[in-house]
């Protein structure tokens, strides 16, 4: 019988699925309901120092089963987020606090504040593609990724993940930099920067014009990124981008991810997607003689063509 539990940097997860940052994770009760629906861990919405409204509307465009969003990092600020975190933790799964900031000092401060608020691990958002001065704007060069990770890591006594952007010439270089800076794991990938124009309106649909593409259409890119990163770093990788089924999760795992995150699929499939993905993985493992998830991590690298 397959055992789906995984250990990520000392965090014990009952299964390898996590809720990805940005989806249904601004309020404690919603996060708890996702956890109860089967997620092994929950990553919070990215939280900053001050309350922030985010971009104007439209902030989302539906494209078949994919989305382009430009929420713009709306969040209530770290000072009041603690009580949402407390509520989320009632569901009994690890809660990973996602934080953003405008530079290494602010991001390091945010990581410490999020740890103080009770998060079980920190995810640094170095990759949001549509918020001026934050996210990918501070995380697009190896130098900055390394210095931010180093600053945030010091004084933090819980695991720290670096979520990286694919909107760069080499995500592998960013991953290596994060590892050098002391990140305990890599999260890959964030959304791909994109734009949707309405020909009838003759203008971009998103109020912010640019947004981030997520959903099944980016999965091959995410899988490729994880595969490349696996060959370049020793720390664990958490794969994210377009996962909707056990098969999709297994692609990431075999590319080298120790666990996966699911976000956009919650839109089409509801919170039940977590238990469904886990059932699929379990069934695959039973059929193929795998007992533990780690036995499958990175196996796609072993095949010689």
């Amino acid at each position, binding site marked *: 019988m397959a055992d789906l539990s995984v250990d990520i940097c000392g965090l014990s997860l009952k299964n390898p699925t996590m809720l990805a940052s940005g989806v*249904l994770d*601004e309020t404690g009760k919603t996060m708890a309901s996702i956890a109860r629906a089967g997620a092994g861990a929950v990553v919070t919405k990215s939280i900053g120092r001050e309350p922030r409204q*985010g971009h104007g*509307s439209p902030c989302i465009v539906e494209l078949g089963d994919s989305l382009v969003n430009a929420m713009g990092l*709306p969040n*209530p600020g770290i000072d*009041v987020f603690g009580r949402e975190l407390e509520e989320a933790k009632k569901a009994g799964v690890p809660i990973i606090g996602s934080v953003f900031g405008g530079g290494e000092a602010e991001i390091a401060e945010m990581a410490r504040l999020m740890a103080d608020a009770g998060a079980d691990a920190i995810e640094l958002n170095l990759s949001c593609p549509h918020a001026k001065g934050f996210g990918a704007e501070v995380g697009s060069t190896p130098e900055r990724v390394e210095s931010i990770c180093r600053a945030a890591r010091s004084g933090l006594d819980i695991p720290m993940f670096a979520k990286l952007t694919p909107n760069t010439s080499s995500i592998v270089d960013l991953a290596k930099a994060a590892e050098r800076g002391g990140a305990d794991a890599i999260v890959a990938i964030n959304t791909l920067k994109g734009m949707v124009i309405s020909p009838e309106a003759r203008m971009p*649909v998103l109020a912010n014009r640019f947004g981030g593409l997520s959903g099944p259409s980016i999965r091959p890119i995410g899988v490729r990124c994880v595969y490349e990163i696996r060959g370049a770093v020793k720390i664990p990788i958490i794969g994210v981008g377009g996962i909707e089924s056990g098969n999709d999760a297994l692609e990431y795992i075999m590319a080298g991810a120790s666990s996966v995150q699911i976000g956009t699929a919650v839109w089409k499939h509801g919170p039940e997607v977590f238990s469904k993905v886990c059932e699929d993985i379990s069934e695959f493992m039973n059929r193929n003689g795998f007992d533990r998830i780690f036995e499958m991590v990175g196996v796609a690298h072993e095949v010689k063509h």
Partner: protein
Amino acid sequence: MKSSIRMLKVSEHIDETPNVRTIVLDGSIEAEPGQFVMVWVPGADEFPMSISYIGDQMGITYQIVGDGTKALSIKHVGDLVGIRGPYGKGYTPIGRKPLVVAGGTGMAALSPLIERLKLNQSEVRVVIGARTAREILFRDRAMKAGAEVVITTDDGSEGEKGFATDIAVPILQTREHDIVYCCGPERMMTKLADKCSELSIPMQASVERLMKCGIGICDSCAIDGLHVCRDGPVFSIDVLKGFSEFGRTKLDATGRRIDI
């Protein structure tokens, strides 16, 4: 893959009351009464609106409350407006003798329900609460559908002086009605919910929260772990009574909790 937004031409723009207008769009829509669409006014804003006319043409009945509705109000016949949806869960038209209670612009969401209920041969009584006689919305429409209409106004300029609940609560006491449908200010709905709960009368109410994505992923319209855009906007009384936030708190645009 084309985006799900339909760009529709404005076919008519109607003054309903001094503050409320209906914009009619040249595009058909199939929806449950109480469901909503996201309305995009290019270059201005996108916001959720309940559908006030469902069928071959779609109607949105609105009050100017911000930049988005202001931009919508200056659209002329032939101009384009973007629509995605319908979204959410609407009212379920059931009951032999329903009581419909509307406050503010609540009749926008309730009017298609009243018409649907009358098609089902229900005996419908409607209480419309307005601030003044001039602001009574869709009274003629409800009467044309065959409903009995009772009016209350805050200033007594027409009908009974007072709030919709001042009339609706005593009506409920008579136990003539087997279901209550409402849409209006949250205080009105909590008052009705308390009464319906006490008398064990089923109720369905349309809840409003700040909505951004409209499709159940951004968490901005969260209420006790459910989402107004996907699980609502219409909730049954069993769900409403389980909410600790209904009538008490909501989230602002940053996600901070504020008192209602």
